[in-house]
């Protein structure tokens, strides 16, 4: 099917807190090369640190259609969805792009993204690439995004199962409204996953753009790193338990350990040698993936790769042990199927 060509887009940006390089990230949206778009910033309060940043940029770029909408009514479900409801209703155009605050847009990104859209597309999304990471946990974060998540994302794409990533979701409101719009994701922790599922149930396609979107990682604390991956992991676990519980078997170090054991028992290979050969093979292939996502990935990431692979086991156990997550200062319980509710300590 041929691409749809040009269509005007409302870009919805939920803002919360002060991300690394927020101003530069937001400014990148004012410099997009695209014939017609508007920017709608969603905030829960005008005392949010992002408010003055967005305001300043709107004044700096008067020729760009942009607006801030403050919506203090936040429900007890998915905070990102609650924050978005008002801008979603207010958007001028049928096509909306939900794009997270910590994303940096290359000037021609929308053009590239829309190229993958045709008449049968339900939602267009993109991988996340971790860029400009700093410090130990910043680099670990980039390795998690560009290694682990990209590895599984690319594998899924290869076998024909594209996964929607919430950092970038481009879709038509008129189509989403056929299953209740984004309001229907209010009590789902993974609005992106459900978007893909719902579009599939409608008989529509999920497409993934060729280029990853840039997330500027910056400095990440140990707690931020652990909390985020605990949250994403528990979300994977509750959304698709069989996938989560078998995932540990397909980790590079697990496969290396059992693969070399098999080679030793079956063919008498030297255990340690074949173990190292396995690990090298996985490191090189993951490094290739990381390099594809972010061209500036250097060899030092092999070290972070190894640490991350080792850290995956305690993290996996921690994920397995509970169903609650901390998200934006609030504690949530995730039910099977990804439904979420707040809990008070």
């Amino acid at each position: 099917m041929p691409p749809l060509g040009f269509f005007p887009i409302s870009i919805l940006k939920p803002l919360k807190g002060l991300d690394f390089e927020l101003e530069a990230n937001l400014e990148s949206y004012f410099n997009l090369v695209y014939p017609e778009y508007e920017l709608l910033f969603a905030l829960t309060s005008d005392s949010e640190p992002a408010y003055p940043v967005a305001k300043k940029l709107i004044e700096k770029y008067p020729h760009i259609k942009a607006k801030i909408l403050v919506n203090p009514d936040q429900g007890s479900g998915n905070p990102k969805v609650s924050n978005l409801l008002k801008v979603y209703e207010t958007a001028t155009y049928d096509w909306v792009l939900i794009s997270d605050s910590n994303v940096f847009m290359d000037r021609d990104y929308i053009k590239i993204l829309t190229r993958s859209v045709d008449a049968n597309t339900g939602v267009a999304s993109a991988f996340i690439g971790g860029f400009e990471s700093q410090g130990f946990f910043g680099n670990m974060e980039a390795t998690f995004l560009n290694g682990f998540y990209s590895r599984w994302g690319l594998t899924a794409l290869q076998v024909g199962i594209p996964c929607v990533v919430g950092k970038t979701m481009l879709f038509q409101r008129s189509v989403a409204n056929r299953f209740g719009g984004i309001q229907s994701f209010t009590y789902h922790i993974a609005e992106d996953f459900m978007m893909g599922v719902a579009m599939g149930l409608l008989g529509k396609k999920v497409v993934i753009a060729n280029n990853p979107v840039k997330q500027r990682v910056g400095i990440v604390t140990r707690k931020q790193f652990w909390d985020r991956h605990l949250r994403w992991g528990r979300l994977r676990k509750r959304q698709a338990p069989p996938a989560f519980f078998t995932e540990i078997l397909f980790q590079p170090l697990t496969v290396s350990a059992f693969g070399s054991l098999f080679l030793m028992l079956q063919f008498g290979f030297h255990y340690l040698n074949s173990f190292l050969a396995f690990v090298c093979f996985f490191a090189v292939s993951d490094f290739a993936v990381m390099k594809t996502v972010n061209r500036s990935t250097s060899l030092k990431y092999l070290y972070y790769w190894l640490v991350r692979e080792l850290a995956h086991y305690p993290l996996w156990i921690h994920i397995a042990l509970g169903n609650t997550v901390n998200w934006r200062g609030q504690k949530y319980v995730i039910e099977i199927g990804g439904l979420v509710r707040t809990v008070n300590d």
Partner: protein
Amino acid sequence: MFLADFHIHSKFSDGQMAIPEIVDFYGSRGFGAIAITDHLCELNTFIGTAARYLESTLTPAIFPFYIEMMKSEKQRAWDQYKMILITGVELSKNNILNSRSAHILGLGVTDWISADDDVADIARAIRAQGALAIAAHPVSTRKIEKQTYHLWDRREELTPMIDAWEVASGPFLFDEVADSKLPLIANSDLHRPSQIKAWKTVLDCERHEGAILEAIRKQKISFKMYEDDITNYGNNHHRRSTLLYRISPIITGNLGAA
């Protein structure tokens, strides 16, 4: 007079077609009414848990999407084809024993019903919503597959709670049900386009959900074997996309929210 089919599965459970595809499939064939009845399995049993992981059942997490999609497709089915689309579910109790297995259709159901209760309670819950409780394939389906005899075994007790019993499922007519003097209905139990060759119910009433449900209650209906050549339909696209849809969450999990 118009043709109707009140037992159809979509991608929300184990059917091959998406709801909009089903609407177009039946609408373009001139049907006057259809009900989409996806499986809603017991969730507290081992088989139910497996069904949930295989995404072959409605769950509380996905049910609101089902209802919303049915609402919007209901309007389109009417505007485009003058066809009535009824929201249904197939409450499914699957046990290793056929004598403990039962499938009950709820035609016109819009609120969640748990399939974990006893069949009599399920039938009552369906009717409490103003919907019809239908005994799906209550006797041997004449196919090599899992059978569901529980409702038939308890038919004397359940008669007051069940609005109709399937006298035909797919291309097979059930003599024992036909001879039983119970209220009847005939449906496809369609999962794939090719299963359109099946017994159907014929109605002669106003094209309106209430009138249709009333015609079934009052048994102002007849049955017809529907022949249709669909060799060009049901191509590989359907088979492939359904399979992938079903295994996708198992393989990939989720890439995570922000």
